């Protein structure tokens, strides 16, 4: 009884989920819970397992191990997916359908009246495009059509897989603005991205996925403060243990005959590094990509539970 009470406003519950493609392990024990109105960004480099996790939530993939519950039901059941809105990573529209027809169709498929389409088209700035064939839209417009189709049923959970990949900055900003309005109305959102900078604009909570495991979680600000934003690259004779001990070194990775050191304070790190290794060569400092940033993170900073949750679950994603 107490457990039911604690999960009453749980929209999505993922527990101990593993997923394999043949022999390759794509998800290695992921737990995640979303409550109503919460927005979680799933952050991870390419191949981290984001799409796999999203496809378990939207019912495209069966749960091989562990459990996925959407609004209390199994997302593999069509009826459960009435609570779900989906924006997929690469979706093409049939060349023969128009924007208005697509959104009206989505309304009817979700059991809504046809008239539900018009306000959503207006909300997303698509009214003027309603008569246009969807296959002939720009990337940003197509993503807005997908979002309109997802929102027309007023879902409890909206799942978006890298919805702004390939969009230019204005289109991106516009997309996040629309999403923010919906969040304000209480829709829970799970969105994947490989851009850490985006998470601050959209998420209450960031969950970092790498190699199929949750390696960090927390508020966007807390994570940004912890993840390295610069990579120092050099050829050096110093060993990894010595490098990891440098002031401000967050992560160390060997890359051929170079090392890549993630840091938030490249200046002080470099001073010591140059002093310790006079033979250092081929030095570069770059902005840290996400794969550099998540290297070295091995466990969540904060539990991946919604704030205020009373439910106890085990540590997440730690071997």
């Amino acid at each position, binding site marked *: 009884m107490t457990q039911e009470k604690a999960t009453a406003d749980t929209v999505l519950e993922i527990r101990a989920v593993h997923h394999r493609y043949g022999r390759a392990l794509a998800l290695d024990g992921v737990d995640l819970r979303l409550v109503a109105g919460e927005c979680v960004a799933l952050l991870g480099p390419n191949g981290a397992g984001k799409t796999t996790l999203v496809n378990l939530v939207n019912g*495209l993939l069966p749960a091989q191990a562990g459990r996925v519950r959407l609004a209390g039901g199994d997302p593999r059941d069509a009826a459960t*997916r009435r609570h*779900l809105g989906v924006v*997929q990573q690469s979706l093409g529209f*049939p060349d023969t359908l128009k924007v208005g*027809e697509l959104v009206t*169709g989505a309304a009817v498929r979700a*059991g809504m009246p046809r008239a539900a389409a018009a306000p959503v088209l207006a909300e997303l700035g698509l009214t003027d495009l309603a008569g246009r064939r969807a296959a002939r839209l720009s990337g940003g417009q197509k993503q807005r059509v997908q979002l309109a189709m997802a929102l027309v049923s007023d879902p409890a959970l909206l799942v978006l897989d890298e919805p702004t990949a390939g969009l230019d900055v204005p289109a991106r900003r516009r997309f996040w603005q629309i999403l923010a309005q919906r969040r304000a109305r209480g829709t829970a959102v799970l969105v994947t991205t490989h851009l850490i900078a985006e998470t601050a604009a959209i998420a209450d909570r960031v969950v970092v996925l790498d190699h199929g495991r949750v390696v960090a979680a927390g508020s966007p600000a807390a994570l940004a403060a912890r993840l390295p934003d610069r990579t120092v690259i050099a050829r050096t004779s110093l060993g990894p243990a010595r490098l990891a001990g440098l002031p401000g070194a967050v992560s160390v990775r060997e890359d051929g005959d170079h090392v890549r050191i993630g840091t938030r304070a490249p200046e002080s790190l470099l001073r010591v590094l140059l002093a310790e290794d006079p033979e250092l060569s081929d030095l570069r400092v770059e902005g840290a990509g996400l794969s550099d940033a998540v290297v070295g993170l091995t466990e969540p900073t904060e539990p991946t539970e919604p704030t205020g949750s009373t439910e106890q679950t085990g540590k997440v994603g730690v071997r």
Partner: protein
Amino acid sequence: MNVRVLGVEVLDELRGIVREPAALFFAVVMPVGFFALFSSLFGEPTMLATFGTFGVLAVSLMSPGIGVARDRELGWSRAKRVSAVPVGITLAAKVVAALPYAVGVLLAMTVAAALTGSLDASAGVLLRVGGVLVLGALPFALLGMAVGFQAGTNASSAILNAILLPSAVLSGLWMPLEILPGFAASLAPFLPTYHLAQLALAQFDGGGGAGHALVLAGMTAVTAALAAVSYRHSRL
């Protein structure tokens, strides 16, 4: 509620058919043109049954199957699969949307027969022939979709044509079996298309053909299972 959803799905499919006139041309104009030519040459009333079988077959084998393949190639089938619509409705819509198309082919052939003076059947017989052909097309639509779940758009089109054209010839849809080499006549009873044509022909002499109907029913069960297995193993 599912009726409304089916309605919307069928409407989308019909839009897809009507807004792509090139496909319409091949599937309607070609069989009807052939029929007009042959029936004006030979004036045989039962040619409506054999050419009608070919026309309905061309539509039912190709249209749903290629539609499924194209949706998969676009990623559009993933959008359907994550929606709240049961997959059966999406697939039923593809078959239902092919019906007006098939009926259109039959109507055009009937008109062509009337114009060339070879139409010699009562309205009842015409309706029965049409009913048999439209219902009997189901297993072929299922077979087409079984292919479309596995192959791409172009490959599906090639595979289904490679099934359609030899089946048509060997089942005597274009030329009577009597004038084909002997092996064709002995092969024909193994082809479902032959049984569909025979069932349609049987309507001209007052019905019958329960054996042919039975073969088609069995074929429907087999192709439905095939389509289900193919769907389950399809890549999205």
